[in-house]
């Protein structure tokens, strides 16, 4: 039965379309025979009920409550009486520190697209070859993703100390001129952070792309080669277009992740020096939990959500369309 799943799910669309005639756009996945009926409803309740109860109870409800708090000037201790409507929202949006934080999130997201995307794609293409120790390589590249953010941050903070491991290695390699105050220089710290982020998450992208590549039948590239295409042309004109869905899902996950970036930054710099590495989430944490400005922090939560949501909608509208299920399917199998 593995055949069922290894089947390149794009093959039907792109090549052997012969037996995929269903313009499936509006077709319900299952015929209506499951519709209605007490028994069916019962089955649905049994199947969906537990997950819905858990999800609504432990995710949506608490978040809804937080959104409610955001309308109050509240430090979390006294009674919830000081209703100020959208007052918190006005203050958050007008705060230069918050505006900077949004900028940093966007820079990280942008850098991810410009740097991690080609890097991850390129490495996936290389690792997709028949190399000795390929599965070891894949294992290694994915390893940082398994480590907790806390361990990652502590390790890198240690290595990046002035005159620490990184500086020592740079000097030993004759690159002493490149040594900087990695975490203390306002002009550098955000980019240092980006390097650590790349270390931690690049493996996930590589695995995703490898999964996508597995879904492309080698026959297509071989056919291209027979037509006289160079390997580069085959990649450019055959592989990359077919990787479109995978790429778009990666971009989606990467941007959402960049917008919610928290643990690594908080542990390594607390958003400093002077907000130079602050993100929306570290701002949220600082106001909501260090300063006890709980209503205010809740407003930041809501704004963070709205921004993520807006991105998701726009991205869906203009880029994603119907790709995600295919890409994730292939990631899984």
């Amino acid at each position, binding site marked *: 039965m593995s055949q069922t799943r290894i089947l390149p799910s794009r093959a039907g669309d792109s090549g052997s379309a012969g037996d995929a005639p269903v313009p499936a756009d509006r077709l319900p996945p299952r015929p209506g025979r499951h519709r209605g009926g007490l028994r069916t409803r019962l089955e649905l309740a049994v199947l969906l009920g537990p997950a819905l109860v858990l999800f609504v109870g432990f995710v949506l409800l608490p978040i809804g409550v937080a959104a409610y708090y955001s309308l109050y000037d509240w430090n*979390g201790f006294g009674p919830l009486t000081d209703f100020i409507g959208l007052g918190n929202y006005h203050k958050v949006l007008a705060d230069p520190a918050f505006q900077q934080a949004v900028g940093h999130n966007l820079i990280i997201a942008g850098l991810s697209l410009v740097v991690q995307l080609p890097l991850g794609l390129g490495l996936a293409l290389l690792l997709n070859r028949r190399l000795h120790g390929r599965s070891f390589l894949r294992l290694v590249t994915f390893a940082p993703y398994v480590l907790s953010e806390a361990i990652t941050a502590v390790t890198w903070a240690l290595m990046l100390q002035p005159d620490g491991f990184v500086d020592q290695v740079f000097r030993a390699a004759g690159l002493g001129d490149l040594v900087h105050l990695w975490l203390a220089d306002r002009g550098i*710290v955000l980019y240092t952070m980006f390097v650590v982020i790349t270390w931690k998450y690049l493996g996930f992208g590589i695995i995703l792309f490898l999964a996508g590549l597995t879904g492309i039948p080698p026959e297509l590239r071989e056919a291209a080669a027979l037509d006289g295409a160079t390997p580069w042309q085959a990649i450019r004109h055959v592989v990359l277009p077919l990787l479109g869905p995978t790429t778009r899902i990666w971009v989606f996950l990467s941007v959402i992740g960049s917008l919610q970036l928290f*643990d690594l930054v908080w542990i390594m710099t*607390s958003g400093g*020096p002077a907000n130079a590495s602050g993100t929306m989430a570290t701002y949220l944490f600082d106001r909501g*939990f260090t*300063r*006890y400005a709980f209503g205010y922090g809740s407003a930041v939560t809501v704004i963070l959500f709205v921004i993520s949501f807006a991105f998701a909608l726009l991205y869906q509208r203009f880029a994603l369309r119907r790709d995600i299920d295919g890409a994730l399917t292939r990631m899984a199998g």
Partner: protein
Amino acid sequence: MRGTGTRRRGALAVVAAATLALVAACGGSAGSNASGKITLTWWHNANNDPGRSTFKAVADAYHKAHPNVSFKIVPMQNEQFQTKIPVALRGNDFPDIYQQWGSGSEATQVQSGKLMDITSATSSWISELGTAPSGWQVNGKQYGVPYDLHIVGFWYRTDLFKQAGIDAPPSTMDEFNADVSKLKAAGITAVAAGSKDRWPDAFYWEYFALRECSQDTVVQAIKDQKMSAQCFVKAGEDLKSFLDTNPFQKGFLGTPAQQGAGSSAGLVANGKAAMELQGDWELATMPALTKDKNFADKLGWFPFPAVAGGQGDPHTVLGGGDGFSCTANATSACPDFLKYVSSASVQQKLVTSNTITLPTNPAANASITDPTMKTVLSYLQATKYNQTYFDQALPTEPGQALDSAVADFFAGQGSASALPKSISS
């Protein structure tokens, strides 16, 4: 992560600190059953020895004298404590006794309605502790009792000062700046700063404010949460000129205060920097940061220097203390236990075990043996006014905003005139 606790114990755990000071808590509430037996849940942040076992011994001794009272002690890593206590107080599952730093943050917590008013329960004995307990009052009511005191000043390396040709510690800012130049000329990092943690930076601005402003001005400004007097701007200008002398180690903006040999306290402990503006807990923090068993012999202490033309008394000190609060669930056993902790015998035990450095009960002062700490103590006894750290004296939100603003100022952001306004934004 505030609180002198952090400072004092150097806790740190990057991970925790880090990761989230978010939330939570739970601990039993004082169970009291029919037979009159009481169990007090006690959260403190002395999760290392000697404090951990000393507090255990104190509780055991109390239990022995009062067999109906037993304890469930939960020593907690400081950052975890900071995260859990506010959440616990928002819920119904909070401890009976917990670490309390007084002043503004205590006032914030009192709003939860979960703290016990122990004014009358303590009235008969609290005067033994002098004026210190007033910092644990909110609106004239006692909600906590301190068990030790803190004072901020310069810790310095006598060996490095000698090496740079400095005979006596400075007493004015002019002398101080001259000493910085001498140290730098001798190739020594003059001052260590732990700016990653933000709160050590605030000490500088607060001290400049205490030197520039009169005591009344400071007290009123904190009460009103409004620092409009010109002297507060002057404090920022003083700080700016000081920062312009580049007194700190390389990369100080990313340096933690108390974690590891590379922290600001570690630099001084290892002789890699000549001094640091820190609390008396510095001495207790350092053994963990250096292999040098005799570092204490090379340390000296001097108060923050006088500033020419300032309105403030040059002997005013900045400080605070650690204490405990009782919560509404606890019975009268709780304030009685605090009385026990404040007693001369327990205070002496806390000092001799190195759990605390400066006792609140003067009867225990004689137990202090370290010569440098004796200097600190005598200075503290001679001072007329001890101002609680501003970030602690103010309610939590403006206090933290002030720390952030000063930290930004250290990083070259903001202006001297904007600094005082940070607390009312």
